């Protein structure tokens, strides 16, 4: 029994301080009795209280139901619209998720970067953002010893930082150099984008926004910059804009030879 029970509740955080000792003691008794049901039911409380809301999820409302494989989130990036030198998507990602340059380019986080490519024969130049490609068969998930690297049912590849031990094997396994290891202490993280020294991180497809029915920050920024080179949507839904574009135009997966079935596709590469 805690030293800090009903009678001494003034010492203990949450109780109302206006109660008389008798009331407090009575309420403590009631709560003790209730605690048994609460222990048993607390998970159900969550489920019951929110089960109805999940179905009718509104933008801006928290998601109450587990994600399913009905959806598979993806990005289509049109290189003909992606401007060389424009880093709107990179800046938006950094601001949204709270990663930034610490002055050590070789160890700094880089969830998304602009890559410039130039064809050796034709001299054609292109610029494109590269981030986690959210593979359907992600090598990083296969190699992770603890299962911290995982793919959500809706196709978003994430790091569960609670069980990441920082071995960096996923960084070795990723074909896209999309992951970075946090080399320095981090402070004042965003509440929805926790990140800390000694773990691995990468693009989350702004999972906190997706769960609230919104688009990733990079897509929003690209549109705001007037390029509209990035389309976010459900690859499983034939009616979605992204699926229709992929059906209509030839698109490219980076390292398609590995047959990882990436969720990020490129048009006009």
């Amino acid at each position: 029994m805690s030293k800090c029970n009903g009678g001494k509740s003034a010492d203990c955080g949450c109780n109302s301080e206006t109660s008389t000792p008798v009331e407090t003691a009575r309420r403590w008794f009631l709560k003790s009795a209730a605690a048994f049901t609460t222990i048993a039911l607390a998970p159900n409380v969550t489920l019951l209280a929110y089960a109805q809301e999940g179905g009718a999820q509104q933008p801006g409302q928290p998601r109450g139901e587990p994600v399913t494989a009905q959806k598979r989130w993806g990005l289509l990036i049109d290189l003909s619209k992606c401007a060389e030198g424009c880093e709107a998507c990179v800046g938006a990602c950094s601001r949204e998720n709270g990663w930034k340059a610490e002055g050590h380019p070789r160890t700094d986080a880089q969830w998304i970067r602009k890559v410039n490519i130039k064809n050796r024969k034709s001299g054609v130049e292109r610029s494109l953002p590269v981030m986690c490609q959210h593979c359907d068969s992600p090598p990083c998930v296969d190699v992770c010893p603890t299962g911290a690297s995982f793919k959500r049912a809706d196709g978003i590849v994430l790091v569960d930082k609670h069980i990441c031990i920082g071995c960096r094997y996923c960084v070795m396994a990723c074909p896209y150099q999309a992951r970075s290891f946090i080399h320095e202490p981090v402070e004042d993280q965003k509440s929805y984008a926790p990140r800390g020294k000694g773990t691995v991180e990468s693009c989350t497809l702004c999972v906190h926004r997706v769960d609230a029915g919104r688009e990733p920050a990079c897509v929003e920024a690209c549109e705001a910059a007037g390029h509209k080179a990035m389309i976010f949507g459900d690859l499983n839904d034939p009616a979605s804009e992204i699926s229709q574009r992929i059906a209509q135009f030839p698109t490219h997966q980076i390292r398609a030879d590995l047959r990882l079935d990436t969720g990020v596709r490129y048009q006009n590469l």
Partner: protein
Amino acid sequence: MMGAQSYIAGWAYVLLSAMLVSAWLAVPAYAQEGANPAGTRLAMAPKPARGQGDKCVAPTDWMRRNHMSVLTHQRDKTVHDGVRAGPFDLKGCISCHAVTGEDGKAVTVADPKHFCRTCHDYAAVKVDCFECHASRPVEGEQSSQLNTERDLAALADYLKGKSP
């Protein structure tokens, strides 16, 4: 073998001396407690900051014992299943139990007055949460979509119905 025996005996002396020294170092603490047991305990007992509003998302005493389990449960549901609604989210704890420091801003876990630290320092239990999570509400952050009022009300109603 004599060599091996004296070797082991040597280590035994080292160990024994270390134990005696630690016991001696600990004497002052015990002496004080012996002199005034109740007073010392009360003085040392943690005084965590009161939350906003008039009650926690679950009975205080129950939370005191079970907050770690429910936080872990909610954490797994959020990270792996994307379930972001629920009363036991760390963000809720952090914002409701924020402690204002001398500069008028909420203190981080670096400050001993931080809600989590008051008890965890006392119990000498390491908190791993703030290696990654923000330990104070992030000012001006708009992505916090949780409807705290509604969540707390729903749970409170449910618990009231269950109480005898």
